[in-house]
């Protein structure tokens, strides 16, 4: 156990304050259980998600730079976000400010007009909740703290798009990303859940797309993409898809229901945030990690596995 990341700034983002509140709750509970401290960014704003970049990519940089600046002003050099969208956008802003003069100029101009100080690249590191637990606790220590092993639970680990792409922002280990997860074969979540006793299945669609960007605006496409993720997970023998992104998670839940209603295709694999699985392994109850707040109902499976 190192002292790294034991106290970090916390950026939940809009999704975790809304429909994905079970991810917010379970992240905080797991942190508490492991003795890690989260200090929420004061008066944060939306990162721009997948939408503001389409209005203007530099506005997204500006929005995320403001959040990084808040972390800096609060005296933190690390900000942790469990949401792939927020994590991606903060990392992208950091990258753009470090590499692109035009982005720097725009952010400076907008900050000036908004009567604030612009954020300078290099002051704050953005990490994902996966990096946080992996580096602050590590798999060995986690294994020791497991009270209620996930033994016998077959899990497909699903990371989605925003956590690993594009390669400029999330380089492979041999290309400057010494401490980042692999772009092509991410495994941080696999490692953590394995340490908690889960039986990870070989899932080839770890970083495939769920169509989250168009989940409502092009629902049929999203339903087809999600159905592929679900049926493949089932074919791989998974009972649960572990997620680490609120957009993916809710997309999988919504389009699982939609696939059944609209396409007549029923799948029974369950979705749980990896923090919910870790929390239950650490001895928290299903209710404490907000299983009842998920859109889909996985309580009977968890009870069957002795995790309810």
């Amino acid at each position, binding site marked *: 156990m190192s002292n790294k990341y034991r106290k970090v700034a916390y950026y939940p983002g809009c999704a975790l304050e809304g429909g994905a509140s079970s991810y917010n709750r379970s992240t905080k509970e797991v942190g508490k259980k492991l003795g890690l401290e989260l200090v929420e960014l004061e008066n944060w704003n939306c990162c721009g998600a997948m939408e503001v970049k389409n209005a203007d990519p530099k506005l997204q940089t500006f929005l995320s730079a403001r959040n990084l600046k808040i972390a800096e002003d609060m005296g933190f050099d690390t900000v942790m976000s469990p949401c792939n969208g927020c994590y991606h956008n903060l990392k992208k802003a950091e990258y753009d400010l470090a590499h692109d003069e035009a982005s720097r100029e725009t952010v400076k101009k907008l900050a000036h007009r908004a009567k604030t100080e612009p954020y300078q690249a290099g002051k704050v590191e953005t990490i994902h909740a996966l990096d946080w637990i992996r580096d602050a606790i590590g798999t060995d220590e986690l294994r020791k703290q497991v009270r209620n092993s996930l033994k016998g639970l077959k899990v497909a680990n699903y990371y989605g*798009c925003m956590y690993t*792409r594009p390669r400029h922002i999330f380089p492979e280990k041999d290309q400057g990303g010494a401490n980042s997860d692999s772009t092509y074969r991410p495994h941080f979540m696999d490692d953590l859940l394995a340490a908690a006793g889960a039986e990870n299945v070989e899932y080839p669609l770890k970083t495939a*797309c769920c169509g989250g960007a168009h989940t409502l605006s092009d629902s049929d*496409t999203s339903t087809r993409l999600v159905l592929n993720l679900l049926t493949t997970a089932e074919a791989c023998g998974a009972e649960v898809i572990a997620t680490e992104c609120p957009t993916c998670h809710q997309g999988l839940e919504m389009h699982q229901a939609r696939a059944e209603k609209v396409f007549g295709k029923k799948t029974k694999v369950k979705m749980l945030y990896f923090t919910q699985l870790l929390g239950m392994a650490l001895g928290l109850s299903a209710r404490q990690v907000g299983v009842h*707040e998920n*859109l889909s109902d996985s309580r009977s499976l968890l009870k069957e596995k002795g995790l309810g």
Partner: protein
Amino acid sequence: MPILSKHLIRDENLIRNENLVIEGVDVSGDWSTFIKTRVVQDYNDSLQEDIAALPGGENIHRCWQCGSCTNTCTINALNPDFNPRYWIYLIRIGMEEELIRDKEIIWQCVSCNKCTSVCPRDVMPEGVMRATAHWLELKGYTPESPATIFDKVFSSQVFAKGKIEEGRLMMRFFKKTGQKLTQDWLVGLIRGLVLRLPIGLLTRMGLSALIHPRTRDWSNHRMAIAEYITEQKALHRKALGLPTTEESR
């Protein structure tokens, strides 16, 4: 010559003759199919510049047509007509009319960034798709796509308040796109959720439905963003040779 790759040629560009005799030779059957002569004169010389002037399209000139983008594309796997490499090709040589044939699907890019990750030339095809979709809308070739409407509803909440609230977002989007506010599949899900009595969640959702979550002291940001958007819009329209004052749609 028989044409071996007929499937690559659009039907309307093929001429078939059941029975054909040319200079006394019977060429019926496979030998009677011809490709229609086609002369393209209406190249749009500034098409690449147009796309490059819109956010995301800046690097289109770097493309050397390797096809990695299409090969890895999420949407191409569902619909072979969704072909980023081909569209980049058409834009670069200025074949506007051909590009416009696919105007109904270009917006469907889901921004999974697989193309941008594999592109050996840093063309950023994901950005090019976005720029092209915007170009089609700015030029008036397509109405605003559902994705653009969603982006606008979403962004306007962020710009106005600093945060979004999902309930309003969905309602406003369904309303703007003329869809039922209560989608059947969604109603079932939400009913199931409510029956599990997530008191905390329901209280929070109820509160944010009443009071929009917001970032404090946001007004300076709101004004700075509005001013910037107006400037950028004018720049984009000017680059495309459109009148700088946008007529309301």
